[in-house]
């Protein structure tokens, strides 16, 4: 009923906290301000790792869903993992959109742009929001697991199509995108290190949160099982004061 051993989980938690603190110091004080974007660029140390974790989380959801559907590897472990990871994915996607927007205002001059990546990420957010809604619908554990696994894979299959269509759309209508994709192509030294360190820190955070969420899901299932068992036991157990036997019913329609 656990993803990681308690000690390992604790170690990952402490490590992620320490690396996040280090990332704050690196990103805010050690790394030099960007030549063009000055301090606004520091948001990238948050934005890139958060976006990476969002994609990682959805990837894990898809993989776990496939493993649940595959008869040989079917286990509730994969269902819980898929659900927990999707929840983190949605949160991190929302964070990606928000901090990207915060960065976009000073650098691009707008909160939002209909850029291919932005639109794809927004659709991704809604795709998995629907998946979470599906997960919350009460039903038998197995039926829910099957429905959710299929829904997760359908959503996952849609992502490349969304990406491709949005790409095609923006390249058709917007010659030479202003927001070219070389944002992190020519960076060196401390800045690159900080970025990679951020990816590491947030990956650790993801693993830690995934473990916590998984544990919560497992405990939730356990509680439900126990409640059902308790309710059954109450019904089956003989009541303490014996119920007085009711008087034999008077038969209707027979002459006395």
């Amino acid at each position, binding site marked *: 009923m656990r993803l990681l051993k308690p000690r390992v989980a604790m170690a990952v938690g402490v490590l992620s906290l320490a690396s996040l603190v280090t990332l704050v110091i690196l990103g805010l004080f050690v790394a030099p301000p960007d030549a063009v974007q000055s301090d606004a660029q520091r948001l990238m140390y948050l934005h890139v790792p958060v976006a990476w974790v969002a994609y990682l989380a959805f990837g894990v959801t898809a993989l776990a869903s496939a493993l649940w559907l595959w008869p040989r590897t079917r286990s509730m472990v994969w269902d819980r993992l898929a659900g927990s990871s999707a929840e983190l994915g949605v949160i991190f996607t929302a964070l990606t959109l928000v901090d990207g927007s915060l960065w976009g205002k000073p650098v691009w001059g707008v909160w939002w742009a209909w850029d291919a990546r932005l639109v794809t990420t927004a659709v991704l957010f809604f*795709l998995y929001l*629907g998946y979470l809604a599906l997960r919350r619908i009460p039903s038998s554990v197995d039926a829910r697991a099957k*429905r959710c696994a299929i829904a997760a894979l*359908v*959503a996952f299959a849609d992502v490349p199509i969304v990406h491709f269509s949005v790409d095609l759309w923006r390249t*058709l209508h917007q010659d030479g995108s202003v927001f070219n994709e070389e944002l992190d192509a020519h960076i060196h030294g401390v800045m690159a290190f900080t970025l990679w360190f951020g990816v590491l820190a947030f990956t650790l955070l993801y693993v830690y949160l995934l473990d916590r969420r998984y544990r919560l899901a497992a405990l939730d299932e356990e509680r439900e099982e126990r409640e059902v068992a308790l309710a059954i036991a109450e019904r089956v157990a003989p009541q303490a004061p014996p119920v007085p036997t009711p008087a034999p019913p008077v038969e209707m329609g027979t002459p006395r």
Partner: protein
Amino acid sequence: MSLLDEVRLVAGKDLRIEARSRVTLQQIVPFGLIVLVLFAFALDPDRGVLKRVAPGLFWITVLLAALLAVSRSYTIEADNGARDGLRLSGLDGPALFLGKAAAIAVQLLALEVVLAICVVVLYGIELNSLFPLVLATLAATVGVSATGTLYGVLAAGLRVRETLVPVLLLPVVAPVLLGATRAWEAAIDGVPSDAWPWVGLLGVFAVLFTAIGMLAFGSLLEEA
């Protein structure tokens, strides 16, 4: 019975119910028409906006109507133990899926013809290159019907079905809206070469989700 016979059987059943109940004809088609008129109210026809955005409005209307069509397609399975009937019919999952999707597709195509005539008449647009337009419409309709049928069965039997299907379906068919709208724009502008990549994309979408639906339908129907 071959797969085709089975598909025809299932689609025929749904279409016969429609022929007798006329829900699509008397409720979904009028719904589409009123949405088109409402768009004209919202975007003053005199400003020329309507003409430019007509393809987008057309496809949004089709998607909204498709939600109703999907909902209807599973409402008729909810009564009188019809879903159990489907499960016990001995028909294979792929045949059931294709049959139900085909019935939705036929109804949507009929709706699209009516709506297209209205868009031409009310919004004053001209359809210059019909061939890519028709192909894009067919592919988009198959794609929407397939995904709709898939999500319909996924939500069938759940109490929140009516509200769940839109939130699941609309993000997935976002590329269809995008592709079909752009293909229509190209067709209206009379530049069919711009439409072909979109027709291809719509085709890929339709094939992919038809395949997924055929694989998943039987097993989802058991849980419904």
